[in-house]
């Protein structure tokens, strides 16, 4: 029992059910956990081999480890239904992550008013969806490490892939049925990216790529006080602090390691008055920050859309660690349970995976590579789409696979550890 929860409405029947359920097996455990949603315990459930289980009793998906097949908590909608038209279609996503022209096109095609409800980061997005502050969106941008949580909480609906033929047609085979959602029952992929460092080489004097541990640059950034920032994401910031110390398990739940990482991050408040935010795609090209933790798409987005006239793209540099030391990820789309237009939501998933639309979203605005077979990342520089120095920001299929690092599902207790650590860091000290 969590020490913070001394007095609770714990009753004997729940206790017996839980201890009996642990002996029975996965399926009954999942239903018991769902029934005890008011439970105050955050004890981690364990599977039959003693390995830790994530939310909903599912194993913890890892690139090289167990794959997860989610149970459908309801039947998907029937095939061949007509799309709903008229009214609003709400997309719940990061701001500046989806081209407004693409949204408008979808709206025109299906005669709906497409609007965007932004969230600041994925954790607050999920929390606000759960407590009603996000309203009733139709589709939501999702990250693989959160899928187990939102599926167990029934915040997203199962997909009927008959409406999404573009998934098998256009997407990388490895992501058609990814390890974190076998059969693409709840998600389809959106973009791929890595996490590294984005900086202005005309202001930052250090040669970051040739440093022994380039991530140390943040701890040596006194000269750029007030001009540095980290991503406002609990997983990304703490993972960076772990990787800097050579710990490659970025899904660790060891409280000692996490605390040490949080203390390291806290030092940054004093060293360079570090900010947190997700606007580096604009602040670096405009020069209001010089050194940011950033996703690879931010370099490309800065180049495409935010670089002011007269500023050459050579001033922006990007670095990411070699494979096995760099967090890579692919974002997804999911259909919210609150949707009133499920057919249209399915059609959105198909729309955004269309080759032309996905490329338009990428090249005209977004900067984040969609995992399309037709889009060969190796030609992006040779055919002149991007300049030479964009190379570190471009990903290929090789960057993904069992040996890559991906922030993935944590147990409920582990999730709380990471989030509390991040709150401590951003409380300022």
């Amino acid at each position: 029992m969590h020490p913070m929860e001394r007095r609770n409405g714990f009753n004997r029947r729940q206790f017996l059910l839980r201890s009996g359920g642990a002996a029975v097996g996965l399926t009954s455990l999942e239903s018991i956990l769902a029934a005890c949603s008011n439970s105050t315990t955050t004890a981690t459930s364990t599977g039959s081999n003693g390995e830790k289980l994530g939310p909903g009793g599912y194993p913890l998906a890892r690139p090289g480890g167990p794959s997860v097949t989610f149970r459908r908590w309801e039947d998907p909608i029937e095939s061949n239904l007509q799309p709903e038209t008229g009214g609003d279609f709400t997309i719940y996503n990061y701001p500046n992550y989806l081209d407004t022209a693409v949204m408008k096109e979808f709206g025109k095609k299906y005669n709906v008013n497409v609007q965007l409800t932004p969230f600041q980061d994925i954790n607050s997005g999920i929390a606000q969806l759960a407590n009603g502050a996000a309203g009733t969106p139709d589709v939501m941008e999702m990250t693989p490490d959160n899928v187990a949580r939102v599926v167990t909480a029934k915040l997203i609906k199962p997909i009927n892939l008959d409406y999404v033929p573009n998934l098998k047609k256009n997407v990388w085979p490895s992501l058609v049925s990814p390890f974190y959602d076998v059969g693409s029952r709840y998600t389809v992929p959106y973009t791929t990216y890595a996490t590294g460092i984005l900086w202005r080489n005309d202001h930052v004097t250090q040669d970051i790529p040739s440093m022994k541990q380039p991530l140390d640059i943040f701890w040596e950034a006194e000269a750029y006080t007030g001009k540095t920032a980290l991503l406002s994401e609990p997983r990304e910031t703490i993972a960076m602090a772990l990787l800097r110390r050579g710990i490659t398990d970025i899904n660790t739940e060891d409280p000692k390691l996490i605390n040490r990482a949080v203390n390291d991050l806290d030092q940054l408040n004093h060293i360079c008055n570090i900010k947190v935010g997700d606007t580096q795609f604009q602040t670096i090209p405009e020069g209001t920050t010089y050194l940011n933790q950033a996703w690879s798409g931010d370099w490309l987005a800065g180049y495409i859309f935010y670089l002011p006239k007269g500023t050459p793209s050579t001033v922006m540099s990007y670095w990411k660690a070699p494979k096995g030391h760099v967090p890579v990820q692919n974002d997804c789309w999911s259909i919210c349970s609150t949707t009133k237009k499920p057919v249209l939501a399915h059609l959105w998933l198909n729309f955004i995976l269309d080759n032309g639309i996905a490329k338009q979203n990428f090249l005209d605005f977004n900067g984040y590579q969609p995992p399309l077979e037709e889009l060969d990342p190796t030609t992006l520089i040779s055919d002149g789409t991007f300049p030479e120095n964009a190379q570190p920001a471009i990903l290929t299929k090789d960057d993904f696979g069992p040996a890559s690092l991906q922030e993935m599902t944590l147990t409920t207790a582990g999730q709380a550890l990471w989030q509390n650590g991040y709150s401590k860091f951003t409380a300022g000290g």
Partner: protein
Amino acid sequence: MYPRWLWPGVALPGVVWLILLFLIPFYAVIGVAFGTVNPLLQTPVPAWNPLDWNLGWMSQTLNNLAPGGIYWGAVTRTVEYVIISLALCLLIGYPVAYYIARHAGRTKNLLLILLIIPFWISYLMRMLAWVNLLDPSGYATRFMSFIGFSNLAVHLGLITSDTNWLGGASVTVILALVYGYIPYLILPLYAALDRIDKSHLEASRDLGASPWKTFLHVTLPLSKTGILGGCVLIALPMFGDYYTPNMVSSAPSTSMIGNQIDLYFHGGPQPTIGAAITVVLSAFLVILMGYYMWAIHRATKEAAAS
């Protein structure tokens, strides 16, 4: 002349509304602060019956708010910002209110209009104006670099480099707070000063006091309730301000206690901690408010007695 039930009856709808939508929500905060958390999605589970209250989150929060806890820095910083901002507001606002009330003559109406205009301009727009001006390429930054003020500020350690006003500097947050709240101070001050009977001042002069003494011993004491009222009017909301630091400096190092509350309610891990901090902040402000009421009560009694 009117039936006795008329006035309570007329006041009833308003009172019921305030009870439903002002008092009961406070109890909701208490219920959540003393409740528990659903571990799957970190959503709060309130406890309505005082017997079911879980004191763990509240005691953890109190520990964290105490010296040495993780919110202590935010607490001291908030108090520091409010006191300094209040002082600056008074320093700038009092002379302005005094001039308009006593000496403006023909320009009084124009000045009053100019004084009131900021009320009608959205607080956020006024902050937006400063965010644009203090941008490294903004007019204010360029002007201050031009006159050398930026170098002075760097020298004093107020900002880190001469164009870095928005990079997490306390001085920017304090000046933004002053800019934002000073109109709410000047107007009550003006009203209080305007009400002072000129005959008191004439009497003081007739009795031989110098202008400065007249100000010190007559004007200032008579405007005391106005000063107190104005200070309360801006200090209390300032304690809960979180959007000002977020707009002019998004660094954790300038976060105020309001930021901590906001963090937990807009997607942070434990809304119960946010509710607990809200309860503590409200209790603190009730004490301040109580002191103000008592001071007013005493001042009215003095005025009635004299």
